[in-house]
């Protein structure tokens, strides 16, 4: 089995029987931060053991690496209002809580720091434009960051938990299935024919496919989580070998950081035990902030990433070839090509119609149309 990122699968759970939580100052945190805590505790963000301090943050912004040279591109930070933490100092331990996730976690405060929001946005997103959703999030952050290790005491059972496997569990699952090479597919959309083609092309060369939809905060107009999961269940039921494909969710917010986020996505899948990671056109992009293949190019900066990226260009159906093609394999004019446009498919579904079968499987379309609420409002 592939080694976790940084060499060790992090486990930051502690037994609540050993903790008297009444003794710690309590802070209510937002859901995204509580999801970060779960991802740290479960090893999805290995080798991180907590929220980043100044040296790691500066190193990530400048070098796209942790201070110890391990590749890392997206800062995992927790922010606080300066007045809220005025009684708190380095060396203290505080209790973090969130109602929605039921997260209760200790945070050992190693550093309290101010930070430059413009520098953070420019480094991660390559822009300071507040129309970029990631930049807007940064400008909405509070003034202070706290760095330090977390220890997860508890969290509650939630919707979709039956699809929610930890890296420990996926690693054992792959071992039991005798999969040595596993390709991960990251998604935030129901599958169209192009997605299926990419997944099956990649699967041809490895032992198993790990479909890993991102569940969590998305932007208006995105498909709802229910729709994404149900549509994949349908596709897998009718068109995949049960012994060759599994689906498990990843609870994290999309950052829309394009190339940097592609590296982050690959690292998380490495921690799940995957050896290969599919990177498509404009991976994790939004608007026109990144070039269509910037998320491919960035991988050349990381010979030590430890997971193999599989780059795919955009696919279409060629009516001359009568198959799914891309610009490297089809000689025919664009007029013969039907694009798998996510925008077009959304429009058709929004009108309550079934997209053409050469764009989306009929069973998948029918599954989506059964939902009253298809899109995030």
């Amino acid at each position, binding site marked *: 089995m592939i080694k976790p990122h940084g060499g060790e699968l992090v486990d930051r759970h502690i037994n609540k029987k050993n903790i008297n939580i009444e003794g710690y100052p309590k802070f209510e945190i937002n859901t995204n931060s509580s999801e970060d805590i779960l991802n740290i505790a479960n090893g999805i963000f290995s080798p991180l053991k907590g929220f980043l301090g100044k040296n790691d943050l500066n190193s990530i912004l400048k070098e796209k690496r942790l201070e110890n040279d391990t590749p890392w591109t997206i800062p995992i930070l927790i922010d606080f209002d300066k007045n809220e933490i005025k009684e708190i100092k380095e060396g203290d331990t505080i209790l973090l809580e969130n109602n929605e996730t039921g997260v209760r976690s200790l945070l050992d405060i190693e550093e309290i720091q101010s930070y430059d929001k413009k520098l953070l946005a420019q480094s991660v997103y390559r822009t300071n434009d507040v129309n970029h959703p990631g930049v807007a999030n940064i400008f909405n952050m509070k003034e202070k960051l706290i760095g330090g290790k977390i220890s997860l005491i508890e969290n509650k059972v939630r919707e979709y938990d039956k699809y929610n496997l930890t890296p420990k569990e996926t690693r*054992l699952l792959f071992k039991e299935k005798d999969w040595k090479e596993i390709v991960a597919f990251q998604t935030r959309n129901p599958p169209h024919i192009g997605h299926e083609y990419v997944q099956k092309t990649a699967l041809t060369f490895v032992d198993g496919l790990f479909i890993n939809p991102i569940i969590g905060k998305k932007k208006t107009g995105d498909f709802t989580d229910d729709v994404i999961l149900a549509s994949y269940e349908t596709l897998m039921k009718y068109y995949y070998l049960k012994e060759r494909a599994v689906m498990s969710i990843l609870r994290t917010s999309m950052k829309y950081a394009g190339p940097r986020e592609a590296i982050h996505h690959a690292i998380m899948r490495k921690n799940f035990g995957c050896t290969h990671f599919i990177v498509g056109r404009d991976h994790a992009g939004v608007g026109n902030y990144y070039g269509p293949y910037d998320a491919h190019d960035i991988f050349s900066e990381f010979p030590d990433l430890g997971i193999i990226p599989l780059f795919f260009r955009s696919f279409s159906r060629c009516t001359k070839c009568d198959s799914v093609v891309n610009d490297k394999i089809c000689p025919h004019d664009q007029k013969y090509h039907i694009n798998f446009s996510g925008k077009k498919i959304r429009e058709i579904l929004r009108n309550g119609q079934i997209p053409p079968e050469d764009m989306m499987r009929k069973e998948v379309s029918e599954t989506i149309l059964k939902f009253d609420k298809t899109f995030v409002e």
Partner: protein
Amino acid sequence: MEKENKNYTTISIPTPLAKKIKDRIKGTGFTSLSSYVTYVLREIISSDKEEDEEAFTKEDEEKVKDRLRALGYLE
């Protein structure tokens, strides 16, 4: 003798080798001898193919397998 600062250190390599590398990286994406050598060393260091050690005790492993069976991931 190595010179060190906080983030970078200077190492010595034979001058003819340095010249060969400089010739080789002309017209590539590598902007300097240092960036090329860093890339190559990172690649070598990461090529450790040692298997991940077992993260489970037998008891833990059975618990996880039970959950995977209950969720339908394993028969």
